[in-house]
């Protein structure tokens, strides 16, 4: 049997395997050491970071929905400086790539966080552009290609680090958003973030989440995520990290076939803390059975029967 090379090069960010864990579902890694060897992961996207500490939203912050969950954590995090001082040293003990998920209310804030993280040994920055833009009246950065271009370009000018732009699925045309990010200098694209949703308690006649709406994740969003990865793969030439509802290796293979170069697991970690390892093993076996030698080989290989 030919040896399979599971390593991937995401345009400058080299992962030992294509499995990463998604921001907000893996804390800062510590919580998983009872369950999984962090050295076995390709990369860890840490909980979304902001310039200052954020306390987050009131309870309830979670609602289970058919094959998915809604969350409204509200980016609770201790702030980027605390992260660097208290969490980075722990994560850096492991042989895996650490990816900082950054969130701002304004372009200036994104740049400032990028500046701060650029002075550390962090391996990559993932720009979460799903946050509302305070200056422009709370509209999400990620919805407008011009804004995506501006914020990506500005951060690009502030950092030499590998730069991932994480796309929100709450848009009409994901392709133009992805192209804007590529044009502005992103090294890589990750998608998808959560879909905005709602759940209602019919007895109390109130929304289940204290904030009304929240982000839908899990198996329910996988078809949407796959479609978006496929669409983006066809219009950009930078690599894609695909995510959304990956619960087993079969799901991961679908993402590779649609065009992802690496994948990220989110909600799955919350149910099975060992899922990343299981998916990794499954991918290896599947590639072997199919006679592929690398992820590069299977990437984007899906055929549409009558097109």
């Amino acid at each position, binding site marked *: 049997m030919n040896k399979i090379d599971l390593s991937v090069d995401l345009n400058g960010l080299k992962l030992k395997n294509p499995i990463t864990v998604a921001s*907000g*579902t*893996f*804390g800062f890694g*510590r*919580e*998983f050491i*009872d*369950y999984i060897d962090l050295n076995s992961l390709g990369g860890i996207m840490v*909980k979304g970071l902001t310039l200052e500490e954020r*306390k*987050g939203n*009131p*309870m*309830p*912050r*979670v*609602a*289970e929905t058919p*094959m*998915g*969950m809604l*969350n409204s*954590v509200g980016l*609770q995090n201790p702030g980027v400086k605390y992260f660097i001082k208290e969490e980075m040293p722990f994560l850096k003990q492991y042989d895996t790539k650490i990816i900082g998920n950054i969130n701002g209310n304004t372009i200036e804030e994104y740049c400032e966080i990028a500046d701060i993280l650029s002075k550390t040994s962090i391996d990559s920055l993932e720009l979460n552009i799903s946050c509302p833009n305070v200056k422009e009246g709370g509209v999400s950065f990620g919805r407008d290609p011009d804004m995506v271009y501006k914020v990506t370009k500005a951060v690009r000018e502030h950092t030499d680090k590998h730069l991932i732009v994480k796309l929100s699925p709450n848009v009409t045309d994901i392709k133009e958003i992805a192209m804007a990010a590529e044009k502005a200098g992103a090294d890589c694209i990750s998608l998808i973030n959560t879909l905005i949703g709602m759940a209602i308690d019919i007895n109390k006649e109130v929304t289940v989440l204290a904030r009304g709406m929240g982000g839908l994740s*899990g*198996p329910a969003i996988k078809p949407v995520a796959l479609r978006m990865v496929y669409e983006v793969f066809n219009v950009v030439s930078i690599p894609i990290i695909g995510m959304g509802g990956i*619960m*087993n*290796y079969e799901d991961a293979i679908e993402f590779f076939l649609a065009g992802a170069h690496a994948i990220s697991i989110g*909600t799955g*970690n*919350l*149910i*099975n*803390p*060992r*899922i990343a*390892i*299981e*998916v990794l*093993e*499954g991918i290896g*076996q599947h590639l072997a059975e199919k006679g592929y030698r690398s992820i590069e080989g299977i990437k984007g290989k899906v055929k549409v029967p009558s097109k």
Partner: protein
Amino acid sequence: MGRSIGREVYTLEKNYLCEILENQRIAHNVHRIKIKKPSKDFKIQAGQFINIKCGEGDFPLLRRPISIGLTDEESMIVYVSKIGKGTKLLCDKSKGEFIDILGPLGNTFNVDIEEGKVLIVGGGIGVAPLLELTRVLSQKDDVEMKLILGYRDEPFIVEEFKNYVDNVIVVSEKEGFDHKGYVIAPFEKELRENSYDEVFSCGPEPMLKKIKEISEENNTTVQLLLEERMACGIGACLVCTCKTKRGEDDWNYVRICKEGPVFYGKEVIFDE
């Protein structure tokens, strides 16, 4: 069980498949489920919980947190109130079936008390974690205990409590028990008439809020076991927090599944 490959190859420290030894309906919509401990050295303490996969495959998607009700060498008992999809599936499991659990999770009641008087107050299914607590405290010769257990209607596991302590006040909104109404009135009376060194409580949030207030008015330390909707149960997702004090006039959201579920009353801030 439709498990993915590789699972057996690794020894997981806190993820186990456990056999159900008994499952009995003990009251309207309440089950007592006895589970075999995954190993002899599996240690789980009063206040801690396990996060259970209640169904097969992806339904329901998330695990359900359930407190440990009573333990012995080989087994652990949980008391489950059937309120929705997950708890219904769990209560429908039969002897000999296996359940996938994560645990032990969370912190424990602080039982570092060698002597004194302790008042334990439970409401509804919140009495469950207090049973293991009562068992543990009953082993301490110089700790004197009194219990107030409150129910909406039919009481349950009162006899189990009586195995460890004689002094039990049963409260129900229904006629025919020691006290009719809610636990708060007998609790307040008890604290005022006798002095206690420590109060332990678990139950619905409005009840815990009152218990905290009354304990503080009487200068009595209180430990509260809080509940919140959870997803991971291991501290990763931050959906299960509660407000706690930080410094003099600041506060923070901390994870009930990790820093809790047991908090001292003086740490917790309940919203209006």
